């Protein structure tokens, strides 16, 4: 089971009400390479991956939920108390008429999150390579969001999240090496 801790993994500060930026950030909330996809991908793969890397999938998957919460906090703060007019100006009128100010698991273009974003092939190498690719894609998405964001305090938190993708990618690369090792040669009786 999981326990909730009443703190963010990293402080999130937002300088100003900026719904347009929230629209971009939602990509990492309900997008293909976003934090929801990441958490669900890893936690689902752990049931059928060899024992030596279950712990890693479990722990990275858990950290991804902390990142999901950071993104939600950014979106929440950027849009809190924004008027329908402001949302409209930011291109969020279609979101507003369906959800008011509520968050929803969709990407920047409004496509709802779908399980088709994640894979579980059952082949350990295929699954971990998918995870490495997912981390690199999420890293790239953070880069592109930083490029279009003009909020320096928000960018600080986004740089933290980008760096986490790098560390996760490093660990998954090590997981491949662990899976390649000849340590547990099949014993024939």
């Amino acid at each position: 089971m999981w326990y909730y801790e009443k703190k963010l993994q990293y402080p999130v500060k937002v300088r100003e009400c900026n719904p347009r930026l929230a629209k971009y950030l939602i990509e990492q909330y309900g997008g293909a390479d976003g934090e929801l996809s990441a958490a669900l991908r890893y936690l689902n793969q752990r049931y059928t991956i060899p024992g030596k890397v279950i712990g890693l999938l479990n722990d990275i998957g858990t950290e991804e939920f902390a990142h999901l919460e950071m993104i939600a906090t950014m979106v929440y703060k950027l849009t809190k108390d924004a008027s329908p007019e402001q949302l409209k100006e930011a291109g969020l009128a279609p979101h507003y008429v369906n959800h008011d100010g509520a968050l929803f698991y969709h990407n920047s273009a409004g496509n709802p999150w779908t399980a088709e974003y994640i894979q579980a092939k059952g082949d350990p190498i295929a699954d971990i390579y998918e995870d490495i690719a997912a981390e690199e894609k999420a890293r790239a998405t953070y880069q592109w969001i930083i490029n279009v964001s003009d909020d320096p305090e928000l960018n600080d938190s986004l740089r933290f999240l980008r760096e986490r993708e790098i560390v996760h990618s490093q660990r998954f690369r090590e997981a491949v090496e662990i899976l390649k090792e000849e340590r547990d040669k099949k014993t024939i009786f």
Partner: protein
Amino acid sequence: MSHTKTMPPEYYAQLEQIQAIDFVIVELNLYLDTHPHDYQAIQQYNQCTYESKRLKKQFEKQFGPLMHFGRSYSNYPWNWDDTPWPWQV
């Protein structure tokens, strides 16, 4: 009635200390998942865990429980669900 319970600077300062030590713990945890025999890293992990527990005990005395489901103690009345939540501060 608006909920303007401004948190004092100590809240943010102590929280940041906890975030920092817990971050080191996360990093060491993931590292140890792929390096299970690194004795020094395990020692550091245990030291940081001790320090984290100490900081949280101190924080909870002033600002209420950090965790639910029996991982923190409650005052009277029940104060787990007091605002602010992490996304609100």
